[in-house]
C-alpha cells in the first residue's frame, strides 16, 4: 500500500489509542494497539516515533516527561483538542474509504 495511506492509518490508530487511554508513552501505544487488535496490527517502532513527532509538530498531541511504574523516565503523550477534532475527521474518512472498497469488492 502506498506510504501515505498507511501513514494516515497509523495516525488514526495512535489518535484513537490516546483518546481511549488518556496518557501513554510510545511503548505503551505499541502494546495497546497490538493487544486490542489481537496481534493483527503490528506497529513498527521505526514508523511510530517519526509519526509521533510529526503529530506533535502539527499540534494534535502533546508530550511530557514522567516516571513509569518501574521508576524509569519516559515521554508520555496525550491528545489535544485539535487532536480530537483531527480524530473525528480521520475516522470519518476512514469509514468512507472502507465503504468504497467494500462496494467495489461486492460488485459482481
Amino acid at each position, binding site marked *: 500500500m502506498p506510504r501515505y495511506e498507511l501513514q494516515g492509518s497509523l495516525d488514526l490508530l495512535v489518535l484513537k489509542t490516546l483518546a481511549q487511554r488518556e496518557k501513554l508513552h510510545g511503548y505503551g501505544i505499541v502494546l495497546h494497539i497490538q493487544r486490542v487488535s489481537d496481534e493483527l496490527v503490528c506497529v513498527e517502532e521505526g514508523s511510530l516515533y517519526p509519526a509521533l513527532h510529526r503529530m506533535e509538530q502539527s499540534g494534535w498531541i502533546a508530550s511530557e516527561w514522567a516516571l*513509569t511504574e518501574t521508576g524509569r523516565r519516559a515521554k508520555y503523550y496525550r491528545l489535544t483538542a485539535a487532536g480530537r477534532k483531527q480524530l473525528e475527521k480521520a475516522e470519518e474518512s476512514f469509514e468512507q474509504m472502507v465503504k468504497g472498497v467494500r462496494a467495489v469488492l461486492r460488485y459482481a
Partner: protein
Amino acid sequence: MGMWHRLTNLLRRERVDAEIDEELRAHLEMAVEDGTRAGMSDEEARRAARLRFGNPVTMREQTAGADVALSLDGMWRDVRYALRQLKRSPGFAVTAVLTLALGIGATTAIFSIVEGVLLRPLPYQHPERLVVVWQSSAEHRTTGEYFSTYREFEAWQQNSRSFEKLAALSWATGVSSSPVLWRGQPVDMLAIPVSMDFFPMLGVSAQMGRTFSQADLNNNCTLVLSHAFWQEKLGGARDVVGQSLSTEDSNCLVVGVMAKSFSFYPAKTAAWKLITPGSEFAKKPWSAMAGVFGLLKPGVTREAAAAELQAIQTPVVAEAPADEGIFRKLAPVVIGLQDNFTWLTGRNLRRGLWLLLGASSLILLVACVNVGNLLLGRSIERARELAVRAALGAGRARLVSQLMAESLLLAACGTAAGMALAMGLLQWFRAASPVELPPGSTITMDWCVLGFTAGVGIAALLMFGLLPAWRGSGTDPNTVLKAYGWAQGHTVSAQRTTRTLVVAQVALSMLLLAVAGLLAESLWKLMATDLGYRTEDVFTAQVQLPAHRYPDASTRSRFAAELTGSLGSLPGVRAVGLGSRYLPMGPTDSLSVEGRAESKEATADVTELDVNAGYFAALGIPLLQGRLFDSGDHSKAPEVAIINEAAAKRYFPGMNPLGHSIKLGRADDGKLPWLTIAGVVSNVKTMTVFQEMGYVETPAVYRPIAQTGPPSLALMIAVNGKTADLASEVEQRLSAIDRGLVLEDIGGMQAMRSADLSQPQFRTMLFGGFAMLALALALVGLYGVLSQMIVRRRRDIGVRMALGADRERILRSIVLQACAMTVTGIVIGAAGAVATMRLLHELLYGIHAKGAGEMAAAGAAMLVVTIAAALIPARRAAGLDPVETLRAE
C-alpha cells in the same frame, strides 16, 4: 508545539537529539523488561528487542527529520561538513574557486567596460537626437571624411528646418594650442571655436558663470573654460569669471567654467571660444572648416535631414569662388553622435570591444566547463561514499542537500573572489586608461552583469555537482558498493561526458590562442614595419608663429632660417629639420601637371608639406633622383618642389619627373605658382583614420620653407645620443631669437606614433592574456581529468602491472589518451578560428594564406604543453606499486 518550540529546537539541536535518544532508549529498556518478565534471559530479551527496533541511528535521523525546523540546522551542519570535505582536498577547492573567479571576474570587467564605452548614452540632453554632419565622398559614405566649410554651415543654419539647433565646432588645422597670459604667466591653451548654439544644443549649462549670450557677439574673444583646464592650469581660481586671458592679439573674456562631468571631443579642449561675426570664420567662410553638430527635431530621420542639407548645399557650393579649390562632389552625411564618438576616439574600438566580449564569454564557458569537470570527477570518486551513506539511511534529499552545500560553498567563494577580481581590473583600467574614451563615459561595475555571470557559474556548479548525485542516490547502494573499481552504469556516461568536456576546453583554448597569435603577429609586423623615416634619436617639437609679429611669408622664412642656423650649432646635432608639419599626411590638395588635360572636378590626391633643406637628412628619408633643397631655393629663385615616389608613380609612370612643372590646384588658378620638380624622395608610411591596422603612402609634394613661409613649424632635430636634455637648450635658443615664442608638443612625432599603436597594443595584450588564461584553464582541466581517471583505474593498472606490463606502456597509453583528446580539441578549435578570421580581418595586418602557418604553430604549441601536463599524472600512474594498489582495494 508551535512556532516557538520549533525555533527553540533550532537552537538546541543537541538537546533535541538527546531527548529523542532517551525516549528511544526508554522504549528499548521497557521492551527488555517485558521480555525478561516473560521468561527470556536478559541477553535474549535485549537481542529480540533490538531486532524489532531496527537501526537506532536511522530511527533517530528519521525522527529528527520529521522536525521541520531542524532542517535549517541541518543545512548549517551540511555547510560545516562541506567545509571539512573541501579542506581535505585543497587542490580541488582552490582550483575550482580560482577558475570560477577568473571566469566571473574577467567577463564582468569586460562587460562593464563595453557598456561604459559603447552602450551608455551620451551625457547630454536628448542624446538620441544628437547628430554630426560630415562631408563624404563616394567611397566613405558611411563614415564621413571631411569638415564642412563655414559657409555651408551658415547656409544650413539659415535655411534648414530639420534641426532644432545647429552648431559648428572646429578642430581643423589652424586650431592648436597657443599660449595665453594668466596673471602674467604664459599658459598653454587649446581654444576650440564654437558657434553660439553649441551649449544650448547639448542642453548643458556652466557650473560657474554662464555660457555664451547674444551680447558676447560684440566682443573680440569670449571664452568658456573647461573644468580640467581651470583646475589644473589656473589653479582653480574662484574669481576667474569676468577676468581676461590675454593672447598675442586680443584679450579674451572668461564668462564661465563648465562642470567637471562635461566634456566634448577633442578631449584636450581647454576652452571654448565663441565664433563672432568679426572672426576669420565669418569673414572668410569658404576657407574656414568646421565640424557641424545638430539636434534633430523630433521625428526627423537622419536620411531626411541629410537630403535636406544636400539640397541647401548644392546651390551654395555652386557660388563658391573658383580659387578656393572647393570639392564639389561631396555630399553631407548625418551620423548619430554616439556612434561617431566611438569612431573618432578609436577607429576600431567598437569592433575590438565586441571581440573582447566574445573572448571573455568563451573564458567564462571554459571556466564553467572546467569546474564542472572537476566536480564530475569528484562525484565519481565519491560514489562509494555516497553509497555508504545511503546504506546508513540517508535519504535522497539529505544526500543531495549535502552535495548542494558543497557546491554552494564553492560558488560563494568563487563569486566573491570574482567580484574582487572584477573591481581590481576595472580600477586598473580606469588608471591605465589605455584607450581614449568617449566624453563623459565612466567605467563602473555593472552589477547586473556580475549577477548574470555569477548565476551562470553557480548554475554550472549545481548542475555538475548535483546531477550525478541525483542519479547516484537513486540506485541501490548495494550495486554501487559491490561494483566499485569497475566502470559501471552511470560512471561510464560520466566518463564520456568528462572527456567531451576536456575536448571542448581544448578547442576553446585553441581558438583563443590562435586568435591571440594572429593579433600578436599583426601587431609585431605593424610595429616592425620600416616607416621610411627615422623615429629614434630625433628630438621633435612644434612652434607657432603669431600672426601680428610674423605677418608675411618672408618674415616667417627668415625666422626659420635663423632658427635652423642657431639649432645647428648645438652640440651633438646631426641635422636640423623644419616642416609645416612633422610628416606628409592625408591627401588634401589636387595636382595639375603642366601640359596635361585635367578633370573638371577638384580632387584630393596629394598632400603638401613645406620643409627646409635639412628635413630629409634629419628624418633619414633617402633621395632617389635629382637633388634636395639647398640655399639656392630662396624666395627670389624659381619655385621648386620635391615629390615622393608615390607621386612620381602616379603622375609620371615610366617617365622621368625631373624638370616637369606641377601646380597644387587647378591649372588655370593664377594665384598658385608652377613648381618645377627638382628631386624625388622615398615614401613615408603614415596611418589614416580609416584604417587602423595598416599604412598608406600618400603622394606628397614638398616645397621649400624659404619659398612658402608657413605659420607653424615642426622641429625634427637628429642627434647623436639621447634627446632628453635637448628641450631646455632648444628653448633657450628659441627665446634668444624671439622671447615670446613657446616650444610645444615636445616629443610630438613619437607621441603620435605611440598613440597610433596604443589600441592594437592594448587589444593584443588583452587577447594574449585571455589566451594564456584559457590555456591555463585547459591544462588544469586536463590534469584534473587525467588524475581522476588514473585513480579510478588504479586497480586496472595494478593488475596490468602485476601481469607484466612495463612502465613505459602504461605511460604511453595514458599519454596517448591525453593526446587523442587534445588533438580533437585542437582541430575543432582551429576550424573555429578559421571561421572567425573573417570577422577579424580589419584587425589583422600582414597575415597571409588565412594564417595557416600561425594556426599550425599554435596547435603544435598546445599539443606540446598538454603532453607535458599529461606526463605528470602518467608518471605517477606508472610509478604505482601494483601490490599496493591491489591491496588497497
